[in-house]
């Protein structure tokens, strides 16, 4: 099967679905780059090269480079979704949701409920997230807890190229508003991705690795960290199972509970800040629903309660590490 990058997998999904469904449009800042200028068209192909070639294939009516005006174009995307289009709006960095949160949180998320079930909002908001790019505090956050908290939104965080394509196709075909978060440090990762179209259902965790001694739950880029930790643990004779929930809303509670019941020891790795984070949320779920199966305290490995720092040594320390996961896992196995 073909080896493709995370970026290429996303690009394929966008190409495929825009070709299949004329109601799908895209809007965002520099989706092409160079709009209105005299030089190269599609100069950037998106700030991270994800949307390259779409302008050529589908034209400027459907691939709309917007002003730097998130509140307006995210709101417009919500309104277009309410009235027959299936927009994909891109927030370049999820941190910028700060200026358009109303349109996501109070509008798109709530239309269906407030309107008594008589509305559909097939909107996808794509955004990059995550630390590691030496970009300081305002371009690096893992803000999925904010969106996960809001009923009416679905929140998708792919960890592999295969998942990125299948989950994005599902997101575009989904009739609810979906926040689709792409870790910017994953764009160059490579994996097997079929050429054809496929969708991965939401609320379906992936068992990324079988194991029996400790369960590591990890999301997005943290799946890689968990995999590295699992290899190190294996060297110490500890067999770690890894579960990637893939979507934090809906959350595949059944799989998390099933594996916690069987394994009894759990480490949750989360790049988000710890207060009211997804790690805290999952750990509360497990403590509530299968306390008796737990053989040790649930350990959380998260970023600290601080903004993302700029200095490389500090940023590296901010991001949960495989060693921290190993330490957490061994601490509950050897107690």
């Amino acid at each position, binding site marked *: 099967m073909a080896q493709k990058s995370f970026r290429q997998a996303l690009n394929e999904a966008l190409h495929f679905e825009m070709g299949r469904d004329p*109601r799908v*449009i895209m809007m965002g800042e520099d989706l092409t780059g160079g709009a209105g200028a005299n030089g190269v068209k599609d100069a950037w192909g998106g700030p991270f090269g994800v949307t390259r070639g779409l302008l050529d294939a589908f034209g400027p*009516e*459907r691939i*709309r480079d*917007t*002003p730097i*005006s998130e*509140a*307006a*174009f*995210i*709101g*417009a*995307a*919500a*309104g*277009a*979704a*309410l*009235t*027959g*289009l299936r*927009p994909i709006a891109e927030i370049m960095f999820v941190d910028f949701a700060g200026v358009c949160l*109303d*349109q996501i949180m*109070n*509008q798109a998320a*709530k*239309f*269906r*409920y*407030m*309107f*008594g*079930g*008589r*509305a*559909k909002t097939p909107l996808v908001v794509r955004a990059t997230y995550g630390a590691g790019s030496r970009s300081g505090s305002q371009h690096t956050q893992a803000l999925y807890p904010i969106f996960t908290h809001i*009923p*009416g939104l*679905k929140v998708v965080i792919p960890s592999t190229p295969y998942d990125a394509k299948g989950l994005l196709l599902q997101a575009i075909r*989904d*009739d*609810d508003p979906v926040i689709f978060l792409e870790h910017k440090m994953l764009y160059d990762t490579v994996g097997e991705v079929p050429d054809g179209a496929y969708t991965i*259902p*939401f*609320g*379906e965790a992936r068992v990324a690795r079988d194991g029996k001694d400790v369960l590591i739950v990890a999301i997005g880029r943290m799946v890689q960290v968990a995999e590295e930790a699992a290899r190190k643990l294996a060297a110490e004779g500890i067999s770690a199972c890894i579960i990637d929930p893939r979507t934090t809303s*809906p959350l595949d509670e059944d799989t998390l509970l099933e594996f916690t019941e069987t394994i009894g020891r759990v480490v949750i790795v989360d790049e988000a800040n710890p207060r009211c984070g997804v790690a805290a949320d999952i750990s509360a779920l497990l403590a509530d629903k299968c306390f008796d199966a737990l053989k040790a305290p649930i350990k959380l490995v998260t970023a600290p309660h601080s903004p993302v720092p700029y200095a490389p040594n500090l940023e590296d320390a901010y991001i949960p590490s495989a060693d921290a996961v190993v330490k957490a896992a061994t601490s509950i196995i050897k107690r």
Partner: protein
Amino acid sequence: MSALQFSREELVNVYRTMRTIRRFEERVMEEMGTGDIPGNTHLYAGQEASAVGVCLQLRDDDYISSTHRGHGHSIAKGVDIDSMMAELFGRASGTCGGKGGSQHIADLRKGMLGANGIVAAGAPITCGAALSAKLLGTGQVAVAFAGDGAMNEGVMSESFNLAKIWMLPIIFVIEDNGFGEATANAHVSAGSFTRRAESYDIPTIEVDGTDVFSVYAAAGEAVERARAGGGPTMLHVHVPRYYGHYSGDPDTYRTPEEKAAMRRERDCLGNFRKRVKDVSLVETAELDAVDEEVEAAIDRAVSAARAAPFPPMSALTTDVYVKYL
């Protein structure tokens, strides 16, 4: 624009709609006193000619978005008053099944994209509806109603910009009742609203919102431009707000004298009666009959709403998503 270009029947309909809005709001205020309508509500009384004059220019499938003060826009766009009253009472038979309430009445079948509890939030959403119309080639236009308070929200300016660069078939109707909640507009707004829109090269028209014929004429120009691909227009409509900001607002920041004068001198229904009487188009008796008809209709709406059941408990968690997994 004069009353002369309407048929007698059309004039009666215009009056009926304005009268329905007025009495709906007055009755809601009364019913608030019984404690049977939950929460609070923002009343549109005094502003009727704006909603009616604009919506009269619209097709059934055209879109509007509204504000927290949304009952008038809904009625003018054809949303059924029985379901609206039931919604205010929080009943299962309400427009939104009792789950939205006054600030979230929406009826997509009528092109009504929702009242909105967030000031100015309807503006970008309406840009999106206009974009749908443009890309799908339906010939629809979209109207974003907003108040003077909305003009100081950043997203309003962002929406002007987006509407213009994308040449969207949209009309921004700024209903200026002089107050953002309890604060006078003059105290918080710099410059001029029309000049703000004009700086985006958006044509503007300033209108007396107590004269339904003037509103109708201005909206006609704007709708025609939008449908012809000429892009957005902004109407600055001056309207009175008969009640306080919300039903529980004692409205002490305006003097009794100004309030009395406002109701006496700036009444779109009185204006209408005078105008049609001047040209002898509709008999006063006929309008009186409409008043009675409206009264009966509102009575029926209130009785039906009171008799209707509250939503079932199961409704608490349904319709959060189309598909849950």
